[in-house]
C-alpha cells in the first residue's frame, strides 16, 4: 500500500494513521460470529460461527441470496446489533463489551454507512445532512468540507434541497457524501443501489468506489450486482450462515 504526498481534499486528513500502523491490524475482524434469531417458537440460525478478516484499504464485496443475513452481518460489524456469540473487532479492539454510548462514539469516529433506503433525515437539507456528522465530530472545517463533498458527488448546487425534493439517485449521493464526510476509516454499504434503476445505480456505485479509493478507506459492500463485485479486491458469498469465496 502506498501513500501519495499531496492529498486531495477528500483524502483523510491529519487523523489518518501512519501506513505502517495500518498494516499491523485489520480494519475489521469477525471471529466465530454467531447470530440466532428467535422467531416465535423456532430459533433461526442466521450467521453460523462466521470468520472474516478485512484489512485496511480493501474493497470487500458480499453477495448472497435475499434473507441470507448480509444486513445482519453488517449490523454486527458496526456494533448496531449484538451477536449471540463470537466477537467483532474494529482495529483489533473487541466491541462486544462496549455499551451503547461507547459504541456510538466508536461509530462516530470509525464507521460510515450507506443504506439501501438512503435514510437521509427528512427535515434536514442535503447540506445539513452532510454537515451533521461533521459537527458531531466537532470538525473545525465542517462547512467547507460539506461543500467539497457535495461538489464531489455532483450536487454542489443542490445543497439547500430537502430529501423529498431530490431523486433517489441524488439522495443516495447525499448519503455517500454524509458517509465520507467524517473521514471514517471504514464504510459499510448495504445494497446502496438496491432501490435505484440500473443506470443511476451504476453512477452511484462509481462515485462510491472512487471515494473509497481516493480516501484509502476500507469498504464492505453488499451487492447483488456481479459487475460491481468484479471491481472488488475480494468477493465473498454468504449462504447458510457461512462465507464462501466467490469467483
Amino acid at each position, binding site marked *: 500500500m502506498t501513500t501519495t504526498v499531496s492529498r486531495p481534499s477528500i483524502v483523510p486528513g491529519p487523523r489518518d494513521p501512519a501506513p505502517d500502523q495500518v498494516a499491523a491490524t485489520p480494519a475489521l475482524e469477525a471471529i466465530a460470529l454467531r447470530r440466532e434469531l428467535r422467531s416465535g417458537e423456532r430459533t433461526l440460525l442466521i450467521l453460523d460461527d462466521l470468520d472474516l478478516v478485512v484489512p485496511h484499504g480493501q474493497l470487500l464485496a458480499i453477495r448472497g441470496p435475499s434473507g441470507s443475513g448480509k444486513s445482519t452481518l453488517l449490523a454486527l460489524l458496526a456494533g*448496531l446489533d449484538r451477536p449471540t456469540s463470537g466477537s467483532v473487532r474494529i482495529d483489533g479492539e473487541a466491541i462486544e463489551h462496549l455499551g451503547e454510548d461507547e459504541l456510538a462514539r466508536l461509530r462516530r469516529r470509525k464507521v460510515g454507512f450507506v443504506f439501501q433506503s438512503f435514510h437521509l433525515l427528512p427535515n434536514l437539507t442535503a447540506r*445539513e445532512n452532510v454537515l451533521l456528522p461533521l459537527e458531531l465530530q466537532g470538525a473545525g472545517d465542517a462547512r467547507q468540507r460539506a461543500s467539497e463533498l457535495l461538489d464531489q458527488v455532483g450536487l454542489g448546487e443542490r445543497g439547500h434541497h430537502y430529501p423529498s425534493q431530490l431523486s433517489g439517485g441524488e439522495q443516495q449521493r447525499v448519503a455517500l457524501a454524509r458517509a465520507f464526510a467524517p473521514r471514517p476509516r471504514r464504510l459499510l454499504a448495504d445494497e446502496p443501489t438496491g432501490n435505484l434503476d440500473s443506470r443511476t445505480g451504476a453512477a452511484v456505485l462509481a462515485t462510491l468506489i472512487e471515494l473509497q479509493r481516493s480516501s484509502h478507506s476500507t469498504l464492505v459492500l453488499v451487492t447483488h450486482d456481479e459487475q460491481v463485485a468484479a471491481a472488488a479486491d475480494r468477493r465473498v458469498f454468504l449462504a447458510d450462515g457461512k462465507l464462501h469465496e466467490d469467483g
Partner: protein
Amino acid sequence: MSEANSRPADAPAATAEAPRARLRPSLAWRYTRWELRGSLGRVVYWVLCLAVGVSAVVSIAALASSLDGAIRREARSLLAADLAISSQADLGEELARAVAELPGGRSAELRETVGLVARSSRTPGEHGGARSLLAELRSIDGPYPFYGEVELEVLPRDGAAERVARTSAELPLAELFVPLGDGDERPGVLAASDLLNQLGLEIGDDLLVGRARTRIAGVLIAEPDRVPGLLSVGPAVLLGAEAFEQSGLGGFGNFSRRKTLIALEDSSTESIAAARQTLQAVIGDDPSYRVETYEDAQPLIREGLEDLEEFLGLVALLSLLVGGVGIAQGVRTWLSSRLDAIAVLKCIGMRPRELFALYLGQAVFLGLIGSVIGGVIGLLGVLLVPIILAGLVPPDAIRIWQPLAFLRGIVLGVGTATAFALPPLLSVLRVPPSRVFRRDAEPLPGSRALDALVLVALVVAVTALASWQAGSLRIGAFFFAGVALTVALIGLGNFALTRLAQRLATERRSFWLRQGLAAVGRPGGGTLGALTALGLGLLVLLTMALVQEHVQDELAADLPTDAPSAFLINIENEQWPEIARILEEGGASRIDSAPVVMARIASIDDRPADELAEEREARWAFRRELRLTYQRELPADNRVLRQADPDALWGDPRPEVSVEEEFAREIGVDVGSELTLQTGGETFDLVVSSIREVDWQTFGINFFLVVEPGVLEAVPQSRLAAARLPDGGEQRIQDAVAQQFPNVTVFRIRQLLDRVVGLMRQLSFGMRVLGSFTILAGLAILAGAVATSSAQRGRQVALLKTLGMARADVLRVFGTEYALVGAVAATVATLGSLVLAWFAITRGFEIEWTWRPLLLAGSFVGAVSLAVTVGLLASRRALRVPPVEILREN
C-alpha cells in the same frame, strides 16, 4: 515502536476528539431548529396543551396580585385614615384624650349599624313597591374621609333637574348633613341609588331613618373605605351624627360599631407606628378596642384573597396537568415518527444520552414557547375578570403587567412539560440502531432504574408544583395523591371501556358502529391520553357543578316550615303588644319574643373577668357585652342536661342563671358556679343552677345565658322578636312596623340568604369558567391526537376511499369514533364525579343528596358533541386525502 504507536490505528484521533466529545450547544440548537422545521402542527399542539393551563395559572396569580396591589396602593383610602380604632363602646375618657393629644392628630368618629329606613307617608306621588327596607347606616362626626373621596351626585343649586357628580373634596359632607333652614329642618343624608329606586324616592324627598325624618340630600355613589359588592345586607346611607342620634338606631340592643378615624400631621410610617404604640399603651390588652393602621390594609380581605388564590391556583394547575397528559401523548406520537431518524443518528455516532438530551431540550424549548404564549394570554385574560365578576372586582384594580405571575406560569408550564415529557422520552434510548436495516428490529433493553427515576421525577415535580401553588407542602402532597388516584381510576375505566369496545366491535353491529368501536379499542390509537385528559377535565367541572348546585339549592330552599323567617330587634317593651298585633294581623305565625339585656361578666367564683380572660377558651366572652334574657319557661328547643334542683328549674332561693352547655365549658362554669353580671351600673350575683343544650338549627330565639325572672326586670333592656311571615306579606308587615315603630329593625332571613346565594352564583360562575379550562385542555389534546395522527388517518381515508367509501361515509366512521371517545370519557367522568360530589355533599356540607338528571345528561351530551366536533375539525386534512395517495406510499 513506542507504546503510543502500538495502539489501534484511530487512537490518536480519538484522543484528539475527546475534549469535544460532548454535544455542543450550538449543534443542539441547530438540530432543534431543524427538528422544528415543518412541524408547525406540533408547535401548535404544544401551545394548545400548555397555554390553556398556563394562562389559567397566570390569570389567577396576576388577579390575586393585582387585587393585593390595589388594596395596598389604596390602603390609606381603604381605611380613609392613617389609623383607626374600632370598638363597640365609645372611646372612654382616657383613650379620647390620648387621641386628642396625638401630634397634629385630627379625628372623625364613624358609627355603623343596620336599620330600617322608610318612605314617608307625606312623600307625594304613587309608589307601589316597598315602603321600607334594611339599610347599612353610617353616621359621620368629623372630617371624613381623610384619604380618598366619597363620590356622590347632587342637584345643582340653579334648580336644574339633572344630577351632577361631586366628591367630598368639592362638597364637604358636613355641609350636606345640615338642614337647609327656612322652615326645612330635616337633616340631610346621602343614600345609595338602590335605596332611592326601591323606595321610589328622589333627591329632596323625606327618608325616615329610624325615628329621624331626614332629607335625601344626594345620591351616594362610592365610599373609599367600603369594598363594593362584598356581602352587604342593604344599600348604604350616610348621615350626620345628630340625625343618627335622633334615629335612635345607635342605641342599646342594636348591633352598632364605632370606628374612630385618625389622621396625623406627619403621616410617615414611623410616626404612625409611634401613634399606634401610644394608643395601644392606653388600651392595654383590652381586645374590645382594636387599633389598625392603613398598612394593615384590610387584613381579612387579603387573607381571604390568599386562600382563594391557593384554591383557584390548584384548579388552574389541574388544567395544566391535563395539558401535561397531552404533552406525554404528543411526545409519544412525535417520537414514533422519528424512530428512523433516531436510528440513523445513532448510526452516525450520536450517543443515546446525547439524543435524549437533544429531544429533552426540544421538549423544554417547546414547553417554553407554549408557556410564554399562555402567560401572555393569561395576563391579558385578567382584563376579563372585572367583566365576569362585575361589581366584585373593579376594573381599575387590575394591573396587566405582573412579572411574578408571568414567571410563575412559565416555571409551572415548563416544569409540567418537562416532567410529563420525560417518561415517553426514555424510548429514545431504546431505539435500536439496527432499525436502519430492519423496521421491526427489536428495541434495546431499557433500564428499570432509569424508568423508576423518571417516574420519581414526575411525582416530585408535580408535588412540588402543587405545593408551590398551594403554598403548603401538605396540601401539595394531598393534591398530588388525589390527582394521581383519580387519573389512575380514569385510566383504568378507560382501559376497561376500550376493551369492551373491542369486544363489541367483533360482534354483529352496524358497519359504522363496528368501525368506530374498533378505532376506539385500537391500541396506540393515541386516544387513551385524550380520553384521560378529557375525562379529568369533565370530572372536575361536573363535580364542581354538582356541589355548587346542591349548596345553592340548599341555601335557596324554603326555610323549614316551623322556623321563623324574620327577626325584629330593638323593640321597646311597651311597644311589643302593638307589634305583636301587627304581626298577627299580617298573617304571621309562630310569633315569639324575649327581653334582651346587655351585660358583662364581672367575675366567676370571685375571680375577676380580666383574670379569666387570660385562661378561659372564650376570651371574647369576658371582654364585651353579652346579650341575655330572662324567662320562666325555657323554649322547647332547649333541653336541660343537669340542674341543681331536680324538681324545679328555678328552685334555689338565690338568683339563678341557666347556661348553654358549650358556652359553659368555654367560660368554665358548671352547676353551682357563681356568676356575677354587670349591667346598667348594677351588679348581680347569680348561681348557675342548670346547664342546657340548645338546638340552634330551629332558628328560634336563644341565648347562652337565661336568668331567673324577677332579677333583671328593672335594668335597661329591649325586646327581640321572631316570627314566620306569610309569603308575599313580608314587605307589608315590615312597612307597617317601620312606619309605626321606626326604632325597630326587621331582619328578613330569606332576603339575607338570597344575597348570599347571589354572591355565590357570581363566584361559582367564575369558578366554572376556570374549571372549563380543564375541558378546553382536554379538547385541545383530542384535537392534537387526531391531527398528529393525520398522516396515518389520511392513509386510512385513502384506503377506505379506494375500497369505494364516499367522503360522507368516511365522515361517519370518524364521527362514530369520536362520539365513542366522548362517551367513554363522559361515562368515566360522570361516575367519578358522582362519587366525589356525593362525598363532598353528604359528608362535607351535610346536605341531602339529590339526583340531577338534567345536569348529568347535559354534560354527557355536551361532552359527546364537543368530542365529535373537535375530532372532525381536526381530521379535516385527513378527510381531503384523495385515494391515489395510497399508491404513493411504499
